[in-house]
């Protein structure tokens, strides 16, 4: 087991290096610079712009910039935002709580929908409930989040005027009102993301449970005269959830990465909106840091999923 772990970690190093080289080259080759607005402003002389470029090291050759970035990263310095002129890690840490809250709760919502609906649909295949659940699930994951997001805003904010559509990270209230305001503004983004993810997972849970429910040991359990509830909960769901757990683990990096489109629509100050504004402003250090951290998380959670799988399913061994 330890040997397996070490081997996997060693493989991760070159893949991370490769990812960083590709990211850096693509960003360096991409046209544009962070000073779009300075260019059309006659009050800013060109020398000032050139000096800014030089001071940020934009005029150095790519390999020099890459090595500078890599050595800084190895020392734990994530870089320095061109646009905000502060360290990238501070920017990311400021956004992490909101991202975890919104995206995290949307994943919880997704699970809370997918598990009961998926299991129930699988235990009664081709019943009316299964058909309705199937149809809704298809609908849910075929509608993109930017569409449902706008639909929600139009209906709940503009037509009904119930919920605010501008997310505020700080609310001027205390006690229960503060909690309530946070819930109120989080409902729409969380539901948009949760319903989308939940729809996809419902299909997955259903097929996983269907696979297990036909096995002989389930028939045995029933033949023993066990209650249907016990059969489903103790014997079927437990085993059917093994692949679901891995799927959820693989989904975890997204919780940290944020949801670009949804965050933009609801003005949620999460990591996704940080990434997109950094891309639009050509703020290379921020893009590098966010994408690199994201790829680290993907690799880490992949490893975690594999280990978890072995632990849940004794048939798999890593020796």
């Amino acid at each position, binding site marked *: 087991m330890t040997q397996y772990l070490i081997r996997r970690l060693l493989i991760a190093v070159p893949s991370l290096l490769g990812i960083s080289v590709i990211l850096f080259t693509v960003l360096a080759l991409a046209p544009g610079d962070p000073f779009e607005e300075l260019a059309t402003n006659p*009050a800013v002389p060109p020398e000032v712009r050139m000096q800014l470029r030089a001071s940020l090291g934009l005029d150095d050759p790519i390999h020099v910039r890459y090595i500078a970035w890599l050595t800084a990263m190895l020392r734990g310095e994530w870089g320095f*935002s061109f646009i905000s002129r502060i360290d990238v890690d501070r920017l990311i840490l400021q956004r992490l709580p909101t991202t975890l809250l919104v995206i995290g709760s949307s994943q919880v919502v997704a699970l809370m929908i997918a598990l009961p609906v998926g299991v129930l649909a699988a235990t009664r295949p081709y019943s009316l409930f299964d058909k309705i659940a199937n149809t809704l699930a298809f609908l849910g994951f075929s509608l993109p989040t930017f569409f449902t997001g706008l639909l929600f805003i139009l209906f709940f904010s503009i037509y009904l005027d119930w919920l605010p559509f501008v997310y505020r990270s700080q609310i001027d209230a205390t006690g229960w009102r503060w909690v309530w305001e946070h819930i109120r503004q989080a409902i729409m983004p969380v539901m948009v993301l949760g319903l989308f993810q939940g729809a996809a997972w419902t299909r997955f849970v259903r097929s996983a449970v269907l696979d297990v429910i036909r096995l002989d040991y389930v028939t045995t359990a029933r033949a023993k005269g066990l209650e249907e509830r016990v059969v489903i909960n103790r014997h079927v769901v437990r085993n059917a959830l093994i692949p679901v757990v891995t799927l959820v683990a693989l989904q975890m990096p997204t919780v940290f990465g944020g949801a670009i489109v949804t965050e933009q629509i609801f003005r949620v*100050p999460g990591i996704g909106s940080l990434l997109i504004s950094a891309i639009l402003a050509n703020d290379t250090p921020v893009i590098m840091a966010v994408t690199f951290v994201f790829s680290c998380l993907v690799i880490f959670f992949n490893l975690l999923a594999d280990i978890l799988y072995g632990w849940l399913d004794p048939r798999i061994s890593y020796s």
Partner: protein
Amino acid sequence: MTEDDLRQLIGRVKRGSLSRRGFIRRMAAVGITAPMATQLLAIAGAAPAAARSVPAYAPTRRGGGALKILYWQASTLLNPHFAVGTTNQDASRVFYEPLAGWAADGTLHPILAAEIPSIENKGLAEDGRSVTWKLKRGVKWHDGQDFTADDVVFNWEYARNPAVASTSAGSYRDINVTKIDDFTVKVEFAQPTPFWADAFVASVGMLIPKHLFKDFAGANSRDAPTNLRPVGTGPYRFADFRPGDVVRGEANPNYHLPNRPFFDTVEIKGGGDAVSAARAVLQTADYDYAWNLQVEDEILKRLEAAGRGRVNIIEGGAVEFIQLNATDPNREVDGERSHISTEHPAFRDPAVRRAMALLLDRKSIEEFIYGRTGPATGNFLNNPPRFRSPNTTMEFSVERANQVLDQAGWARGRDGIRAKDGVRLRFVYQTSVNAPRQRTQQIVQQAARRAGIEIELKSITASVFFSSDVANPDTFGKFYADMQMYTTTMPQADPQRFMNQYVSWEISQRANSWQGRNITRWRNAEYDAAFRAAEGELDPIKRAALFIRMNDLVVGSNHIIPVVQRPTVSGNLNTLRPVLSGWDLTMWLLSDWYREA
């Protein structure tokens, strides 16, 4: 009433503790007529001119609750000397203040200055070589320290230091600033300078405190903790800042103007898009004010119909215009296209340029694309009104264009495209990706087709088109196309910086890494001479005439075809009374914003 009483009353008007109307009423009580009283004020220098340019401030007390402002771009830093665009400048302006700002009518309004320098008050030197600013007394930074001349001098040293890499350096490099006494500073210029109100004024003039920045006035400027936690003199104190998301301030209890600010807190939320920002104010009234609503006028009108808010359209100098390249973008000289030694094969003929101007249907563009947010214009220099030329026309006529081209010998070929001496009228027309621009391109393309001119449309992502990336061929500075279109902004109420876009020494080329301001590469000796003359002309009327002449020269050459003016468009709730100006930042007089009951 004795002379002393009178002087005291006038003094109170100047300090703002007595309103001008109240003064006039008291005068009337002792038998002095209103016009006479007004004149008394004028002679005493309680400038009615400035009072006219800024609307009266009504509230008599503070405590107006929260002010919520929505920007669809988010501010990323709060040091005005590092601000890359107006979003950051606006956010900084909540906390920091300049000596003076530009009012909507293009006049100066004192903020941290005790008065606006003029020849009469000996603030301006007669030879135009210096300006002396008297500072307001009793102003305190948010941390309780006094604001003095040392702070002003420090800002000059800070901004001009190349190691700091400030974006405001251009306004501070070529001047000399000295302290006369604790509340007087003198700005000296190398040449007579008619446009003296640049340093310490408006967006580049916000003043940062010396005592907090003096240890960070070099290469370590980015480490200053105050970059993210501003300490200024402004109406609101710093409360909280999250880069790329939200800036919050709370009322400054020691603000240097009475009864101000009105609101207890101010919040500027950033991010999202312009349309939903307009909705959040005009339709759902979740926010009080939405900045820069670059939204189709039709949508704005529909949202306004909800009756909760209204749209403000503030005129400035920004203009959307088309450039016809004076050089040949398709020939390479020394590895450089659009080289200054070449001539554009078609646009060298004035008839072709004239035809292109005749083919621009400004009326349809205004009517169907921009609406109230883009009035058609035939001038490059539109504002302030004293600089607007009365000599230009806006004619749209496909027929006349055909006539002009026929007369000049451009005959239609078998494919319907005109040609002469092997040169075909086929142009590449580029602009940035932006829906109204693409629609304008189409209108031009269709009209040109009817005159036997084929136009190929090209649109480039804004962050590429407007970048200073030397390696990229698609930047507007390189202008490797026959025609291009964009908006140029005019950040000050004076046209000098604006009109240097056509002088021959500003030509954009490899030697200056395509950073030169003359992108059209048009050269004209008379224009150059007029510009040089205006740079040193101290008589305001002669100077205005020179700028009008420059506008007529460049527009008359038809190398520049103005399309529409671009006023700033914003939205606010019906109850909010913002003070806006097209010549300064949105927040330029945030101290005077209030809400009506």
